[in-house]
């Protein structure tokens, strides 16, 4: 008798559990759809004919069939491109790359070198300098917009990519913080031993700290790269000659060109512009998530 009741209780518990689990799946799938549907709408539209996309009659499966004319229009749009025959959007992509790669790499180097010094070396004024860096993170970037423009204008850097490149080369405070946190976790004994072998401080950094921190460096480098790739306000303010336009600015130009006449082309341009970052993310997902998760842990 007692046993029977117990079994019944177990089954009701099980029903409850399956129900809860189903509910969890429903919520997770719905949320995934909410994130995913806008992308699929863009993709489907990019493969439509201009006339179908322009009508108020949306079909998931294009009535006039799939076509690559949107992509073709983007790749044939060379007006304003600095390089003969290269599409504006692709030129923007290459401009973005050569503008952001040097500050990303050099900035990462300077940040981690500084982080190593803050984490492992003793020197005068260390705490004072570190508080100064802390201050950097507190200043909202938009406040520096006007004075920075005036300074760069005075030294003739406006309409060159230099304002987008040089400041980043010195490193970023957030990156210093993140790497310092990481380096503090590396046992100091390793460095003591190297010191006894007569290694100097920079070699210790290069030969010991850097190899030990490759994942953390990758995480920071990727985040820095994505940030630069997606930057819109900086290029908008400083780059005025079309031959220097970055991908984001080129994309916005294409929008003005295509938004009324050729919606599929606009969507094709959107797809082309996000494919690099999404691919990079999917390939290096682990590092991204790690980089973000650790950056937000401490406040």
């Amino acid at each position, binding site marked *: 008798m007692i046993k029977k009741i117990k079994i019944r209780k177990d089954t009701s518990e099980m029903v409850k559990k399956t129900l809860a689990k189903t509910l969890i799946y429903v919520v997770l799938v719905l949320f995934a759809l909410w994130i995913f549907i806008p992308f699929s709408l863009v993709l489907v539209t990019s493969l439509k004919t201009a006339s179908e996309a322009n009508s108020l009659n949306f079909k998931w499966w294009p009535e006039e069939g799939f076509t690559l004319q949107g992509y073709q229009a983007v790749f044939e749009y060379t007006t304003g491109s600095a390089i003969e025959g290269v599409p504006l959007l692709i030129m923007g992509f290459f401009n973005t790359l050569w503008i952001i790669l040097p500050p990303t790499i050099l900035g990462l180097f300077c940040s981690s070198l500084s982080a190593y010094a803050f984490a492992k070396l003793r020197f005068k004024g260390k705490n004072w300098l570190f508080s100064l860096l802390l201050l950097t993170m507190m200043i909202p970037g938009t*406040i520096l917009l006007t004075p920075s423009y005036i300074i760069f204008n005075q030294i003739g850097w406006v309409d060159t990519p230099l304002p987008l490149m040089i400041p980043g080369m010195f490193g970023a405070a957030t990156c210093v913080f993140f790497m310092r946190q990481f380096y503090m976790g590396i046992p100091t004994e390793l460095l003591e031993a190297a010191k006894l072998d007569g290694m100097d401080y920079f070699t210790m950094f290069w030969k010991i700290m850097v190899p030990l921190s490759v994942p953390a460096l990758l995480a920071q480098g990727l985040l820095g790269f994505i940030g630069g790739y997606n930057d819109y306000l900086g290029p908008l303010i400083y780059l005025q000659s079309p031959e220097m336009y970055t991908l984001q600015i080129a994309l916005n130009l294409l929008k003005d060109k295509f938004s009324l006449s050729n919606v599929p082309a606009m969507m094709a341009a959107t797809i082309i512009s996000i494919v690099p970052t999404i691919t990079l993310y999917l390939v290096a997902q682990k590092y991204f998530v790690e980089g973000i998760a650790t950056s937000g842990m401490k*406040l």
Partner: protein
Amino acid sequence: MYLSNIYNKRKKSGRTENISGLLMALIPVVGFALFGLIPLVMAIVIAFMRIPGRGDIANGTFNSINNFVEVLSDKMFWKSIGNTFVMALSLPICIIIALIIAYLLTKNIKGKKVFRSIYFIPYVCCAVAVALMWELIFNQNHGILNSLLGLTRETAIPWLTSSDYYLGVMILIGVWSGTAYGIVLYGAALTNVNSTLYEAAKVDGANSFQSFIHITLPAISPTTFFLVTTGLIGALQEFVRPQIIGGGNGTGPNNDGLTIVFYLYRNAFSYDNTMGIAAATAFLLALMILVLTVINFAVSKKWVSYD
């Protein structure tokens, strides 16, 4: 002799450590001084100056507090503050959704990795692409939403060109692109919650809802605090989304897309002679951010637990 030798050696090594440490640490600090501190000081000076043309500072003149008077008496400035705060409503929605999703992802379910990957994608998409994406959906004349609602050209709803819908759509876009960050942070925080606490609660007869309220929420309160603080600072500087959807220099219907930074940007780069006004706006924005952050920290003592 031997001892003093060691002493000298140590002293010497201390000195090289001092110098090389300082040199290595200094690079980002120098960068900050050049590109952060100098502009910061200038920002304060410019706020009290009248600058002719587009940043011709050599011919600038002292303008006392006139820039501030002008900004504070400009209806558009107050309107931009209102717009910014309405758009910032996406922040609490993002935080709640991110918490729910991250919590569900800690449960024992299949396909966790796939879900996580999908949820994070908006984070790596540039704001321009996101804006274009949503414009495709909300456009009045060829927008997919109007089409799915079965509307015709005559009855189509002007989502992006009418004051009734515009800010709502902006909040929605903010929610779509803003949850990813919170999901990742909450995900990390939730895995760090001490599991013995849950077991103890279970022994005491608490159901999962109770243990969520009394154990999980307090344990992850530092993350919530981080998201609220940084999110608010970011939301107050909203610019790209309304700027692109408004179409270059358009500010949306009835100026609903004019955020504080958009207002600042217009004065700095679209109009002549108003750089000083832009700097005064930036000054006020900084003050607002400072006050809100201080309030945040003060209130946090009541609900954030670090242990």
